[in-house]
C-alpha cells in the first residue's frame, strides 16, 4: 500500500485545517504585525521611566516655570508650572517646543573664526590677542542682554581687569504691578503677545482696560478694548496729546478719548516709546497698580551712550539691539565682534568669531528677575539633556579668556550662598507650589538643591518712592530659532508666524 496522490491531498488538507486550529498562524500574524512596527523608518519613541522634572525657561527674560515630562533622561513635552508666581502655569508657543531646539538645522555647534572652523583654543588665543591690541581710545565691551545674572558678574569682573573694559546693559529697577492696574495704554508694545509672561498677563486680563496705540492692526490690537491707529513714529506726539487731555486741555479727539478712559480706570500705566512723561502725569511711579521699584542691579553703561567708532572688541550674546546700532559703535577698521551664541543667525552672521553656546535644557543656566516682576528674582535652569562637546556657556568662555580657573557653576553657587546670607525673600518650589522663607532654609546647600530641583527665589518688596527715572521693561522678541514643529504655524496652516 503506497502513498497515493489522494493521500497527499488529504494530508495537506488535514494539516492546513489542523494548523488553523492551532495558535501558530495567529501568533505568526501578531509577530509579523509587531515586526512591521519596528521596521527601519518607523519612528520609535524613547522608552524608559516616565518622570516629571522642573526647570526655568531661559529663552527670554520672562523666566517662566517649566514642568518637563521626561522618558528616561529625555524631555518629551514641556508645560507650565501651576501657580508659578511669574508665569501662572502658562508657557508661550516657543517655550512649549523648546525641547526640540537641539534638532534645528541652524544651530552653532563649533567655533568659527572669520567663517572658518576653528578650535576653541585657537579662538581664545586670537581673541585674547585682539583684546591686548586695543588702543588707548578704544574699548572692549560686553553687551549683556539680561543684566542681574551671575553671568553678568563674570562679565563685569573680566572687564574690570582690562584697561578699557565697558559693561553695557539696559538695567531696569522697575517692575509692573499688573495685578492692581486698571488700564494700560500701550504704544506698540505687544501686551498680549510677547510682553512679560503670557500667563501673568492673561490671569488678570479681565481686570484692566487695554488701549493699543500703534499703526499696525496687530494681534494685541485685535483684542484691545480700544485700538488707536497712528502714523508710524507718532507715539511721542500722541502721548503728548493724551497728556494734554489728562490736564483737561483741548486736544485730538482720539487722544481725548484715551485720556477719558485713563481717568475712568485708575491706576493706569503707559508702556512703550513716549510713555515716560505720560506715566509721570498719571502718577503711576511707585504706587500700587503702577511701576514699583525692585532691588536694583549695579549700574551699567547704556550701549547707545558709547562714543561712535570706539569699540574695538565686542562680545555679544543674543541679539538685543538692531545691528545698525552695534555697527555704529565699532571702530572703522580692525573691529572684532565675538558672538557667544547657539545660533547661526542675528549677530553671528556679522561676527568675526562665533563661539557656540549650549541651548536651553542643555547646560546649567540661570534666570534673573522675571521681566516685569515688582521684586527681584532668581532661578536656576538645570541641564536635562546632554550638550554637544564643542559648546561652551558664554560666562564659561569669558572665564577661560580671563584665565580664571573658577567655573560658572561655582559662580552660581556663590550667588546662591549670597542669597542665603542676605536672608531676604522666599523661595517658591515648583513641585509642591509652596513658598518658604529663605531664613527658614537650613543652609546655602539646601537652597542650592531647592533651586536646582525647580524653584524661584523672590525678594521682599522694597519701600517705594515716586522720584526715579522710569524705564519700563521692554517687550521681548519671540526667539528667532524655532522648533521644526513650528511648520504647523507657518507652513501647514494659514497662521503665519515668522
Amino acid at each position: 500500500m503506497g502513498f497515493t496522490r489522494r493521500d497527499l491531498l488529504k494530508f495537506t488538507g488535514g494539516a492546513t485545517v489542523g494548523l488553523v486550529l492551532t495558535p501558530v498562524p495567529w501568533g505568526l500574524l501578531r509577530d509579523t504585525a509587531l515586526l512591521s512596527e519596528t521596521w527601519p523608518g518607523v519612528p520609535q519613541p524613547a522608552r524608559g521611566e516616565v518622570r516629571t522634572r522642573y526647570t526655568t525657561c531661559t529663552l527670554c527674560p520672562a523666566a517662566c516655570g517649566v514642568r518637563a515630562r521626561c522618558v528616561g533622561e529625555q524631555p518629551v513635552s514641556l508645560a507650565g508650572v501651576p501657580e508659578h508666581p511669574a508665569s501662572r502655569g502658562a508657557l508661550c508657543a516657543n517655550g512649549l517646543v523648546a525641547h526640540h531646539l537641539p534638532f534645528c538645522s541652524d544651530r552653532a555647534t563649533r567655533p568659527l573664526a572669520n567663517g572658518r572652523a576653528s578650535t576653541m583654543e585657537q579662538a581664545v588665543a586670537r581673541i585674547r590677542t585682539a583684546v591686548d591690541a586695543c588702543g588707548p581710545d578704544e574699548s572692549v565691551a560686553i553687551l549683556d542682554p539680561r543684566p542681574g545674572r551671575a553671568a553678568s558678574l563674570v562679565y563685569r569682573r573680566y572687564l574690570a581687569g582690562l584697561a578699557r573694559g565697558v559693561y553695557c546693559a539696559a538695567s531696569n529697577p522697575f517692575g509692573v504691578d499688573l495685578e492692581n492696574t486698571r488700564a494700560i495704554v500701550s504704544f506698540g508694545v505687544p501686551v498680549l503677545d510677547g510682553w512679560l509672561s503670557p500667563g501673568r498677563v492673561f490671569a488678570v486680563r479681565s481686570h484692566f482696560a487695554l488701549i493699543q496705540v500703534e499703526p499696525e492692526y496687530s494681534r494685541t490690537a485685535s483684542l484691545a478694548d480700544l485700538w488707536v491707529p497712528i502714523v508710524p513714529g507718532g507715539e511721542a506726539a500722541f502721548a503728548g496729546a493724551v497728556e494734554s487731555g489728562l490736564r483737561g486741555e483741548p486736544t485730538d479727539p482720539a487722544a481725548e478719548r484715551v485720556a477719558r478712559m485713563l481717568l475712568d480706570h485708575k491706576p493706569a500705566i503707559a508702556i512703550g516709546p513716549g510713555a515716560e512723561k505720560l506715566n509721570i502725569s498719571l502718577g503711576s511711579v511707585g504706587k500700587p497698580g503702577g511701576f514699583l521699584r525692585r532691588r536694583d542691579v549695579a549700574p551699567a553703561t547704556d550701549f547707545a551712550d558709547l562714543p561712535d567708532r570706539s569699540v574695538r572688541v565686542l562680545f555679544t550674546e543674543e541679539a538685543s539691539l538692531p545691528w545698525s546700532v552695534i555697527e555704529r559703535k565699532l571702530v572703522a577698521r580692525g573691529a572684532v565682534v565675538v558672538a557667544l551664541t547657539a545660533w547661526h543667525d542675528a549677530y553671528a552672521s556679522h561676527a568675526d568669531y562665533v563661539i557656540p553656546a549650549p541651548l536651553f535644557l542643555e547646560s546649567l543656566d540661570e534666570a534673573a528677575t522675571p521681566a516685569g516682576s515688582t521684586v527681584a528674582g532668581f532661578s536656576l535652569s538645570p541641564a536635562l539633556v546632554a550638550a554637544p562637546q564643542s559648546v561652551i556657556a558664554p560666562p564659561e568662555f569669558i572665564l577661560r579668556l580671563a584665565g580664571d580657573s573658577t567655573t560658572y557653576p561655582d559662580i552660581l553657587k556663590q550667588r546662591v550662598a549670597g542669597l542665603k546670607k542676605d536672608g531676604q525673600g522666599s523661595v517658591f518650589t515648583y513641585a509642591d507650589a509652596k513658598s518658604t522663607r529663605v531664613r527658614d532654609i537650613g543652609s546655602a546647600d539646601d537652597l542650592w538643591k531647592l533651586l536646582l530641583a525647580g524653584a524661584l527665589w523672590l525678594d521682599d518688596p522694597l519701600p517705594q518712592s515716586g522720584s526715579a527715572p522710569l524705564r519700563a521693561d521692554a517687550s521681548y522678541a519671540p526667539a528667532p530659532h524655532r522648533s521644526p514643529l513650528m511648520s504647523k504655524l507657518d507652513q501647514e496652516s494659514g497662521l503665519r508666524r515668522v
Partner: protein
Amino acid sequence: MTKTKPARYGMAIDLDRCTGCGACMLACAVENNVPPAQPEATPRTGITWMRVYQISNGAASPDTRAAFIPILCQQCGRETPCAAVCPQEAVQVDPATGIVDQMPQRCLGCRYCMTACPYHARYFNWWDPQWPPGMEKTLNPDVATRMRGVVEKCNFCHGRLHAARTRAAAEGRSALRPGEYLPACVEACPARAIVFGDLNDPESEVAGLARDGHSFRMLERLGTEPKIYYRTERAWVREAAHA
C-alpha cells in the same frame, strides 16, 4: 465601583481671549506625535489636528477687525458625518464619552470622511511621518505614530483619557474627577481661552459656558450637534462662523 452616567466631553473656546499664538497647535502636535511638515506640504496637505484661522471683518483700516478661531474636530453628536460614510468602520462615536474616535489601523485611505466633514477638521497622511535626525526620541510614548495613506484627526488626546482612567482605576474609582483629564491644547493655552469638561454635568464650567448667551456652535444649522462651543461678544465673528 458603581456604574456612572456616560460623559459627553466637550469644549468651550473663548474667541475674545484667543490671540492666535498657536500654542494649542504646537501642544497638540507634541502630544499626538504629529510630525513636522514635509518640504512639499502646504496648508492643504499639512496635518494640524487643531488649526487656528484668522478671520477679518473685511473692512478697510481703521475699521478693520480680526479674530482667531481654533478649529478642531467638532465631535459631532448627531449623525456624525464622517462615521456615517466610513466604509471601514474606522470612525466610531464612543458612547461612554461622546468622543468621535478615529482608528488609523482600520482606515483604507478613501478620504470619504474628509469629504463629508463640514468643518475640514480631518487630515490625510500624504507622506510617511518623518522627524529630523534624533528628534524621534522626543516622541510621546503613549501615542502611536500613523502611517502614510491614512486619515487622522483630533480625538481629545485619547492617550490622556486612558492615563486618567488608569489612575482612577488604581484608586478604585470608575468616574474621573473634573479637571483630571484635559487635552493638551487646553493645558497649553496661555490665554486660558479653552475650557474642557463634561457637558452632561450641569455644574461643570464647560456646561455653563455652553449655556452662555454669547456661545454658539459652528455651522449649527447642519444639525450635527457639535460638542465644541465658541464664545464671543463680537457679533461679526458669530456671523462669520455661521456662514
